[in-house]
């Protein structure tokens, strides 16, 4: 168990190491021009300048705050509605085709419309995130409901649970680990949605920094911005995975999908 865990950490680091070596090789030799890809040292310099001169930390904070607000709104809507869909065949027959339809529209295609409706301010950013996360998450939550074993529900019924008890005190606690894992996955979509929104039109945020640097041909800054998103995503993902057994000591390990 522990061994295989360290083995997987080792292999994961190995792939990063290989990428780093190839990257250094092609850039320091100027095999690839620095307009296309900076050397590791140029990248570090670019990143430091971003933080020192451009106030990058502020933009990271703004982007993170947008993610958090948009995400929380989406989750607060998606959990109860998803559970309702999972419980009621009629509700899911009614709403699932619509949800599926919207879910399949690529997020950037909706951004121009949202800008028409809400402008390019914070409201639009948050709605873009909430909308994307909500429509992905709601079906995952609905699907999780069906994983509750019939026997657990029946045993609650013979213990005197009402229908409301079954929903709030049996199904919800039982599927919480699954929902938690669904949340972990959907944070990725939140970032995708936000970057699209910030690149199309924003006065702050990581996405703005990236397009701005691109217009000025500051490739190191572009790459630094991109890597920042990856690092934030990785930290969130690892933190959530590490907290899983803390939040759900009773649950068997989930086969983390994606």
């Amino acid at each position, binding site marked *: 168990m522990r061994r295989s865990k360290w083995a997987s950490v080792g292999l994961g680091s190995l792939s990063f190491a290989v990428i780093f070596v190839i990257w250094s090789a092609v850039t320091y030799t100027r095999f690839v021009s620095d307009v296309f890809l900076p050397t590791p040292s140029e990248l570090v310099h670019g990143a430091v300048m971003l933080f020192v001169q451009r106030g990058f930390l502020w933009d990271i904070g703004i982007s993170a705050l947008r993610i958090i607000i948009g995400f929380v709104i989406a989750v607060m809507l998606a959990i109860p509605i998803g559970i309702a869909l999972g419980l009621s065949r009629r509700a899911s027959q009614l709403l699932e085709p619509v949800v599926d339809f919207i879910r399949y529209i690529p997020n950037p295609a909706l951004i121009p419309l949202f800008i028409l409706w809400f402008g390019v301010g914070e409201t639009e950013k948050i709605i873009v995130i909430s909308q994307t996360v909500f429509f992905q998450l709601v079906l995952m939550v609905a699907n999780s409901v069906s994983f509750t074993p019939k026997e657990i529900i029946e045993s609650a019924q013979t*213990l005197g649970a*009402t229908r409301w008890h079954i929903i709030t005190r049996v199904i919800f606690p039982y599927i919480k680990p699954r929902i938690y894992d669904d949340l972990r996955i959907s944070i990725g979509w939140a970032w995708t949605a936000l970057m699209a929104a910030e690149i199309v039109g924003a006065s702050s945020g990581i996405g703005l920094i990236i397009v701005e640097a691109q217009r000025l041909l500051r490739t190191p800054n572009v790459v630094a911005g991109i890597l920042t998103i990856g690092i934030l995503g990785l930290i969130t993902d690892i933190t959530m995975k590490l907290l899983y057994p803390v939040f759900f000591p009773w649950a068997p390990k989930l086969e983390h999908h994606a």
Partner: protein
Amino acid sequence: MLELIHVSKSFRSADGAVVPAVDDISMTISEKEFVSIVGPSGCGKTTLLRMIAGLETSAGSHIVFNGHPVHGPDRERGMVFQNFALFPWMTVEENIGSGLRFAGKSDAETQDIVSRYLKLTGLEKFATAYPMTLSGGMKQRVAIARTLASDPQIILMDEPFGALDTQTRSQMQEFLADLWVKDSKTVIFVTHDIEEAIFLSDRVFLMSPRPGQIKQEFKIPFGPGRNHELKFSDEFFALKKEIMRMM
């Protein structure tokens, strides 16, 4: 008092054929009686128990409990499921107290009853453990304690000791016999172990397979306070032989 009046149930199999599971069973069970239902696997024991619990219904079948027809599950008829069906996110004590919580009992009262059943089932040391960390025998005790704590009028038990090894099984049988003396309840106990049925019951119903009907009823003459010595008595052995012969 529980009355089963012409109770039948059939299922539709995957290929559309009608499979009778329970066929025209009538019986009356009085208060504080311990009744066993024995029969081979697939003869409809679980289905019958589920109908009594209200988890399965069937047009034309009547199950009347204390003068009221049974329409659905409720806390008057508690059920101990074959594979425990514990709540995995609750600790042992939370599981035992869950029925009391559903009934809206106060913290103090719940705590009180839960600690009584923890003691009764010898689970005090495991009060804060989660079900996944327990052995089969302990899970079974939690399941029994959980049902008892919610204070049903009838306890329905579906082969509760089926998954246990012989030794744990004997211990659990004695534990249940003992419990029944201390905390007298109506019990309907499903098993395919004839010895277990005789040891625990006032009456044993023998079911025949396909369609599930009651083949015969046996009165068990032993009084309360039984222990395993009883299993070696001539009277016990004679009864066992009689039932075996009917199967």
